[in-house]
């Protein structure tokens, strides 16, 4: 019994290494972790494979049924989490990220006007860094719709995007309020593209009844400005629903930090 439990423990360590290695070779990694940590996960995966193999060859220490059960539970959670990810557009197909990332054009031309590509989280952070910034700048941004009683009273809805710093545990859905004429009927969870400009609100409107988006349990919407929509189009959920902005990226030059999927 003891040997069987130890063998199982070793197999779990080995399995964790294999899972991490496989995950880093897939696009699904970005649904769990910020892709900039991919090298760290690869290094750790190799470490787990080595120590797991060593443990299987020469097991150390005693057994503990609780720890075996915990790692079995982790295995089941990993399978369940991956199954959930499989249903989305981010597949589990082994498709390593491109080694060289080509910087996409930060602008999009639409109806003859140039729109700066920016995700809602970056808009949030830009306004936070400089509330008076670029009121004449046209933006195109993609995000998830969130409605609430407070927003309805203001005649607006929130456009949000899950922003991950390190891993999904620290992700916060960030974004801006949107208002405009001829807005199509939108429901919570709809993915849309908005073309528009930022305008200051007459007075700060702190929204405290947002809740989560389904992708991320916690949301924050910028309370000093809103996006006046010139056009709104519905879209499919993007391949990468999360973005990876830092508070400092609100001050950065207009560029897409994570490629063309990043606005």
């Amino acid at each position, binding site marked *: 019994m003891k040997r069987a439990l130890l063998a199982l423990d070793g197999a779990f360590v080995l399995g964790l290494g294999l899972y991490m290695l496989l995950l880093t070779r897939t696009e699904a990694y970005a649904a769990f972790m910020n892709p900039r940590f991919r090298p760290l996960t690869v290094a750790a995966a190799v470490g787990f494979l080595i120590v797991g193999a060593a*443990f299987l060859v020469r097991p150390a220490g005693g057994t503990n049924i609780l720890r075996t059960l915990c790692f079995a539970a982790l295995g089941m959670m990993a399978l369940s989490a991956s199954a959930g990810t499989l249903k989305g557009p981010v597949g589990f197909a082994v498709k390593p990220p491109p080694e060289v990332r080509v910087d996409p054009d930060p602008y999009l031309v639409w109806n003859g006007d140039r729109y700066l590509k920016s995700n809602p989280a970056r808009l949030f952070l830009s306004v936070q860094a400089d509330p008076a910034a670029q009121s004449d700048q046209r933006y195109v941004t993609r995000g998830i719709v969130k409605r609430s009683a407070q927003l309805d009273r203001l005649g607006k809805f929130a456009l949000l995007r899950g922003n991950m710093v390190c891993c999904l545990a620290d992700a916060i859905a960030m974004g801006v309020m949107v208002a405009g004429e001829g807005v199509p009927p939108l429901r919570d969870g709809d993915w849309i593209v908005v073309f528009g400009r930022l305008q200051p609100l007459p007075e700060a409107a702190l929204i405290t009844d947002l809740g989560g988006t389904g992708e991320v349990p916690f949301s924050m919407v910028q309370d000093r400005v809103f996006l006046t929509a010139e056009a709104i189009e519905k879209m499919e959920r993007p391949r990468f629903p999360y973005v990876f902005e830092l508070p400092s990226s609100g001050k950065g030059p207009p560029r897409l930090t994570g490629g063309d999927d990043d606005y």
Partner: protein
Amino acid sequence: MMLQDIQLICRIAVSIVLEAAPFLLFGSLLSAAVDRYADTERIASRIPQGALGRITVGLLGGMLMPICECGSVPLARRLLGKGIPPLSAVTYMLAAPVINPVVVLSTYVAFSGNFQMVAGRVFIVAGSAALTGWLCCGCLRAGWPADSNCSVSRPDVDHLHSHGAQSMSADGRNCRTVLDLLSSGASEFLEMGKYLVLGALASAAFKVFLPWQLVQVLAGSMSLSIVVLMLLAVLLCVCSEADAFVAASFVYVPPAAQLGFMALGAMVDLKLIGMYFGAFPKKMAWTLVIVPMVCVFGLTFLSGYLVR
């Protein structure tokens, strides 16, 4: 509970494990290496006898040997088991995840060069770690408990091959030594890893079911916002390398509350609470949970009048 919620809980829990596991493995291997190779008696004999000296050793160790909070627990457990004074070992364990250059720099970047936030975080954590270490000395006055699970994890003798150690070549002995070191590291990881898994699961469930609207409303006043963000730090289990960026995102709360989030999260969170109770005697584990909370609240509340 909907299927979507369960899947989100699983994804968050797995992401916490993916984030923390590399550091826990590093700490476990370091712990196994200390057990086998470090001359801890000699190190212990060179540590000053006075409290101030021991605290300084713990803090200097934290600055010079960066390690994440998950990795510092198995290492500190090993150091305590090998006779390093609790005041140095505990101060190191609690302070190292924050006062190391990597985290100091990440805090500086996250708060756009706001030196007050960096200094505030370092001083609050160093102060709390030193006081907690001092109080933990009382918990371990009778020495490191013999029945604790800090006993050295050695490979099973059953697995020794039939040929004896004497007949083994030097290469074979070296190979076995490396194998033993790696296996001990894996054993240490498994032992601490169970608390990581349980903590990650609890944290994910809290994150999904927490009434966030209430959190935003409560975050309105300074004292309440400090309590709320400290509670979030415990529940969310964000790594100390990244928590400054998360804290900086909480733009609606006063800086003191952001400080409370960053200072406490590296010392007490759900996965660490499990690890403390698994690695240390109960009285010491309670000290490790409660004292940093009280210290961080008091110091961040005071800092609220200084950092604005």
